[in-house]
C-alpha cells in the first residue's frame, strides 16, 4: 500500500509539474492564428475524414482561406456547409473592404 501511494504521488507530481510548464510555454509562445481559418474551421463538420484531400478539417480550412481549395471541397458537409463557408468568407471580405 505504501509503494502504491508513493508511486501515485510521484507520477502525479511529475504530471502536474510538466503540465504547468507546458501550459506556461504554450501561453508565452502563442501563435496568432488567421481568424478566417478559425471561422471556416468552426463551420466544417469536424469529421476529420480527409475526403476533401487534406489531412484533416484544420488543413482543409487553411487551404480554403488561402484560396488553394474551392468552398465546395467538403464532401460530408454537402450544400449546407458550402453555403456556410461562402457566408463566412464573404463576411471577412466585407470586413476587409470596410477597413
Amino acid at each position, binding site marked *: 500500500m505504501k509503494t502504491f501511494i*508513493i508511486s501515485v504521488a*510521484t*507520477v502525479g507530481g*511529475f*504530471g502536474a509539474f510538466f503540465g504547468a*510548464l507546458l501550459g506556461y*510555454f*504554450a501561453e508565452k*509562445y502563442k*501563435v496568432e492564428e488567421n481568424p478566417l481559418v478559425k471561422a471556416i474551421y468552426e463551420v466544417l463538420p469536424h469529421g476529420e475524414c480527409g475526403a476533401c484531400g487534406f489531412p484533416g478539417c484544420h488543413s482543409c480550412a487553411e487551404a480554403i482561406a488561402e484560396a488553394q481549395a474551392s468552398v465546395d471541397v467538403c464532401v460530408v458537409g454537402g450544400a449546407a456547409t458550402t453555403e456556410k463557408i461562402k457566408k463566412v468568407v464573404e463576411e471577412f471580405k466585407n470586413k476587409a473592404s470596410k477597413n
Partner: protein
Amino acid sequence: MSYLANLGKIFVASAFVNNIVLLQFLGLCSYIGLTDNMHASIGMGYAVTFVTVLAAAVTWIIDRWILIPFHLQPFLQIVSFILVIGSLVGLVEIYIRKMSPHLYKAMGIYLPLIATNCLILGVTFINSLQGFDFVESIVEAVGAAIGYFMAMLILAGIRERLRNSELPDFFKGKAIAYMVSGIVALAFMGFQGMIK
C-alpha cells in the same frame, strides 16, 4: 584510466561503435521518413539532439534522486521517463511552431512522433542500466544524438543524389533507402573493436 579518457571512450562508443541508428536500430521511423529532404533532416537532427540531451539530464536526476531512494526504480521508470520526454517534445514543438513555421510544416507528423522515438528512451535506459554518473549520461546522450545526426546527414545526402540518378522502378523511394542504410550500417561495423 583518467576520468576524461573515460568520457572520450563513452562518446566514441555511443557515436560510432554502437551508433544508435545504424547498429542498434533505434529511431528508424524518422530516419527513413525524413531523409528525403535535407532541410527537414537537419532540423530534425537539432530537435532530437536537444530533446535527447535534456531528457538524459532530467531523467538522471529523477532516477537517482527520486526513483532509487523511494525504491520505485524498475516499474516506474518507463512511465516517468516517457512523461519527461513527452513534455520536452511538447516544448520543442511549441518553440519551432513559433520560430520557424516553415520547418514546422516540413517536419509534419514526425515532430510529435519524437515523443515515441525509441532512440531517446533507449538512451535514458542505457544510462540507467550502465549506472553512469551525471556527466557520463550527458556525454552518452550527446554521442548518441551526434550519431543519429550523422546517420541522417549521410542518408539524406545519398538520397538527394539518388533522386537524379537512373534507378529501376521497383528500387525507387523507400526501397533504395533501406538498401543504402544497410550498406552504410555495414560500413559502420568497421568501427567494431575500436575500443577495448
